[in-house]
C-alpha cells in the first residue's frame, strides 16, 4: 500500500469484485484485512501491467529535473513476489538503461536488482539492500516504488470516516527507517491509498505522498497522478502515468536476455 507506482499498475477483475463487495457491506474493522486489500490495490492489480511514467522533480529553488521511463510489472503471486522491468527514456544520458527487480515478499530475503548499461553492454548486479534510498534521484524511494512488506510494520486503524480508513503504521525495526510512524488514508470503496503522511522521531510531519488523480482503467481504479513532498528539503516530485494497461500477458522478460535487448512492449 505504500507505493503508488504499483497503484496504476493493475487490478484483477476478481479482486475488484471482492473489494467492491466488501465496501458495500459497511465499514471494515479488521485492520489486517484493510491493509491487505490496500496492498493488493496498490501493487498487485491484475496479473501484470504496463505504464509510461513521467517524473518531474522540483527542488526548493524551483529547478526542475525530469525522468521518463516505461515500467513493466508481472506478479508471481498476489501479495507475494513480483518482477519489475524499468526502461529509461529520459534524461538522455540514461536513455536505454534498464533497471530490473525481482522483488521478494519474504522479509528475510533481499530483492535482486540488475542494471543494464547499454554503452558498455554491461549487466551489473546492484548490491543495494537499503530500500529507503531515492529512486532515480526523485523524492520517491525504492520502497514507494516496489512496495514495503506489510510485516515490516504494526498497523492500527485509528479512524473510519464516510469515505476513508486511516491506518497508523509503526515500524517493527525502527533502526532501519528514517520515520517513527506513518499514516495512510485508504479509500473505503477502492482501497486505493489516497494519502500517506510520514512523521519523524519528534512527531513532526516531514513527508507526504498524495494520490492526486485516480482514474478507472479497464475497470480498475488507478492512480494516474501522485505527488510526494519532502517538507524538510522543500523538494517535490510529481509522478504521472500514461498508457496504463493491465493483463497484457507480459512474458518471461525479466531475464538477462531482455536486459540486453528489451522486449518491444517496453520500448514502444
Amino acid at each position, binding site marked *: 500500500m505504500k507505493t503508488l507506482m504499483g497503484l496504476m499498475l493493475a487490478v484483477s477483475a476478481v479482486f475488484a469484485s471482492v473489494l467492491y463487495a466488501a465496501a458495500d457491506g459497511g465499514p471494515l474493522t479488521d485492520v489486517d484485512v484493510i491493509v491487505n486489500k490496500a496492498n493488493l490495490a496498490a501493487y498487485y492489480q491484475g496479473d501484470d501491467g504496463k505504464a509510461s511514467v513521467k517524473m518531474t*522533480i522540483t*527542488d526548493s529553488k524551483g*529547478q526542475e*529535473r*525530469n525522468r521518463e521511463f516505461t515500467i513493466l510489472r508481472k506478479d508471481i503471486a498476489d501479495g507475494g513476489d513480483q518482477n519489475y522491468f524499468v526502461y529509461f527514456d*529520459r*534524461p*538522455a*544520458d540514461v*536513455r536505454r538503461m534498464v533497471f530490473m527487480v*525481482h522483488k521478494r515478499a519474504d522479509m528475510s530475503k*533481499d530483492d*535482486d536488482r540488475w542494471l543494464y548499461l547499454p*554503452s*558498455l*553492454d*554491461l*549487466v551489473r*548486479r*546492484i*548490491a*543495494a*539492500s*537499503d530500500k529507503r*534510498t*531515492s529512486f*532515480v*534521484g*526523485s523524492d520517491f524511494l525504492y520502497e514507494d516504488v516496489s512496495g514495503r512488506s506489510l510485516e515490516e510494520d504494526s498497523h492500527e486503524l485509528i479512524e473510519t470516516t464516510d469515505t476513508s480508513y486511516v491506518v497508523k503504521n509503526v515500524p517493527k525495526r525502527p533502526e532501519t527507517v528514517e520515520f517513527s510512524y506513518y499514516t495512510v488514508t485508504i479509500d473505503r470503496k477502492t482501497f486505493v491509498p489516497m494519502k500517506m503522511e510520514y512523521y519523524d522521531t519528534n512527531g513532526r510531519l516531514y513527508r507526504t505522498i498524495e494520490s492526486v488523480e485516480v482514474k478507472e482503467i479497464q475497470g480498475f481504479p488507478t492512480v494516474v497522478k501522485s505527488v510526494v513532498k519532502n517538507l524538510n528539503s522543500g*523538494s517535490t516530485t510529481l509522478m504521472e502515468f500514461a498508457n496504463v494497461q493491465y493483463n497484457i500477458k507480459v512474458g518471461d522478460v525479466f*531475464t*538477462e*536476455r531482455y536486459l540486453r*535487448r528489451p522486449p518491444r512492449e517496453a520500448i514502444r
Partner: protein
Amino acid sequence: MSYGRTGVVLMVLVAAAGLTASAAGQNDEKSSWLDEWDLHGFYELRAGYRTRNDPYEKDMSIMETRLQLDAMSYTDWADFRFKGDILGDLVMEEADFDLREANIFMRPTGFMDVKIGRQILTWGTGDLIFINDLFPKDWQAFLIGRDTEYLKAPSDAGKVSFFHDLANVDFVYTPQFDSDRYITGERLSYWNPNMQSLAGRNAIVRADRPDRWFRDDEFAARLYKNINNYEYAIYGYWGYWKSPGGQTLGSAPRATFPDLNVYGASVRGAVGKGIGNVEFGYYESADDMSGTNPLVNNSELRFLVGYSQEIGRDLTAGVQYYVEHMLDYGNYLDSLPAGMAGRDRDRNLVTFRLTKLMLNQTLTLSMFTYWSPTDKDAYIRPNVNYKVTDDMAVELGANVFFGDHPNTFFGQFENNSNIYTAIRYTF
C-alpha cells in the same frame, strides 16, 4: 586510425541492408522507414594534463572535443543501430571518426537473438577486471581519462544467442581479429623491455597484427544459466592475445599477438547483504604450450573473487582479489635472455571501489583503486561527476599511478599520472 575506414564500410553495408529491407517491406503502411530514426547523442569537451614531467610524452594528456551521434530505428523484423563519434584530438593533432556501433539486431524466433555488425560486447563478472571477456578494450582511453564507456572498444562480429530452459548460450564470431587498443607509446609512456627503459614517442610499438579475414578470426562462446538468481557461466575463447603477447627477434623487434585459447567459468549472486562473484580462466598460450619460448607469453591461470555491498545511504563499497598465476614459471625463468629481470610467478591484485551519490543523486563521487602487493604498484581513479541539469554534466577526475619499479604493470605508467576535467551536453 584504421577504425574509421572499416567503420564507414560497415556502416554503408548495414545501411544498404536496411534500405533493402525497407524496400522489401513496403506493403505495410509506414510512410518512410528513414523518418523513424531516433537520434540522440552528446557533445563533450575534455582536457587533462600530466601531473609529472614525462620526457617521452606531451604535457597534455587529453585535449579533445567529441560529438557522439546515436541513431536507432526498427522495423517489424529488426532493429538498426548506428553510433559514432566525431573527434577533434589536439594531443594527436588529428580529427577522427570512431564508429562505435553499426548493427542489425533480430529476434527471429522465440529462442534466438542475432546481432550482426559493429557492436560493443561484454560478459563476465569482474569490475574493471576482465578474465573471460576477451572482447577488445581500449586501455589508452581508460588511462588518459576518457569516459569509462570508452574502455570497451567495438567488435566487428556476429553474435547469435540461443535461449532454453536448460541453459542459454551465446556464440560470437569475429571474422577478423579485433585487438585491444593497447599502449603504443604515442600518448602514454611505457616500459620497453628491449630497451630496458621507459619509452614513449621515441619508441612507438610496431605490431604485426593478424588481419586476414576469416583466417585470423576469433570465436567466443558462453553457456550460462540463472538458478535462483545465482548466475552461472562457462566460457570459451579461441583467438589471440588481445594486447601484444609476444614479439619478434631482430634489431627492430615487432610486437606480436600469439594464439590464445581461454577456458573459464564464473558465478555471481547474493552473499550476505551484498553481491559476491568468483571467476577463473585458463589462458592457454597456444604458440608456446611448454612456456620455453621467451618471445611468447606463458600460459596462465587467472582467478578473481569479488564482493560489493551498500555500506551507507547511497554509498557502495566493492573489493576484489585477482591473481595471474604463470603456469610454466621454471621454463620461463630458464628462457629469459641473460640480464633480463623476470617477473614474479604470481601477480596479485586487489581492487577497492567506493561510490557515493549525493545531492539527490546528481553528484557522484567515486574512487577505484588497483593495488598490487607483488608488483608493489597501484593505480587510483578518483572521479567527481555533477549533473548541473538533466542535459549537462561536469566532471573532474584523475589517473594516478604509483610504483616501486618502472617495469611493473602500473609502475611503468607513473609519469602518465594525469588530472582531467570535462563538460558534456547530452541530447
